[in-house]
C-alpha cells in the first residue's frame, strides 16, 4: 500500500491495525484490573449477592489507584524508550560522522 514506508504518516490499513491493537490492549488492562481489584476487595465468603458499602468503596479506590499506577509506569516506559532512541540516534550519527 502506498505510504507504508512514510514515517509518522499512517494509511488506512495501518490505522485500523493500530486501533485494533489499542482495543486489545485496553481489554487486557480492564481484565487484569478487574481480577486484581476483585481479589483485593471482595472476600470469598459470599454471604450476600449485593455489594456492601465497604466493598464498593474499596473497588472505587482500587480502580482509581490502578489507573494511577498504570499511568506512572507508562510515563516511565516512555521516558526509557525515548532515552534509548536518542542513544541509538547519537550512536548512528557518530558512526556516520567517522570517515
Amino acid at each position, binding site marked *: 500500500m502506498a505510504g507504508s514506508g512514510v514515517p509518522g504518516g499512517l494509511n488506512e490499513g495501518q490505522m485500523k491495525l493500530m486501533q485494533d491493537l489499542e482495543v486489545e490492549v485496553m481489554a487486557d488492562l480492564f481484565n*487484569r484490573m478487574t*481480577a*486484581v481489584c476483585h481479589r483485593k476487595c471482595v472476600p470469598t465468603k459470599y454471604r450476600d449477592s449485593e455489594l456492601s458499602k465497604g466493598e464498593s468503596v474499596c473497588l472505587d479506590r482500587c480502580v482509581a*489507584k490502578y489507573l494511577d499506577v498504570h499511568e*506512572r*509506569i507508562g510515563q*516511565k516506559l516512555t521516558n526509557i524508550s525515548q532515552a534509548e532512541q536518542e542513544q541509538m540516534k547519537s550512536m548512528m550519527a557518530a558512526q556516520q560522522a567517522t570517515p
Partner: protein
Amino acid sequence: MDTQSIRNLRDFLQMYNRISETCFTQCISSLLERDVQSDEVACVQRCADKHINSNQKIMQVFMEVQPQVVAKRMEKMEQQMAETQAAESAEAQPQTAEATEVQPQAAVESAQAEAVAQ
C-alpha cells in the same frame, strides 16, 4: 509500519500491562485512600525499574544461548539423517543364502557409509 513492528509494539504493550498488574498487586498495600501514597509511589518506581532491567537481562542471555541450542538441534538432525541413509543403503545390498557372510559385510559397509557421512 510492517508486521514485525506491530508485533514488537504488541509485545511492548502486553509487557506494560503485566508490569502494571504485578507492581500494583505487590506495592499497593492499603485501599484506605483514593490517592496513591508516597511510599507506594516509591515501591512502584522500584518495581517497574526492576522488571525492565530483568527483562533486558533475560533478552540478552536468551540471544546468547538460543543460537547454541538451535545449532545443537541441527547437528543432531543431520546425524540422524546420515544414520537413516546408511541403514537404507545397507538394506539395498543384494541378499545371499549365506546370512552369516552377508551380515558382517553389511555391518562393515554401513560403518564405512557413516564414516564417510561424518
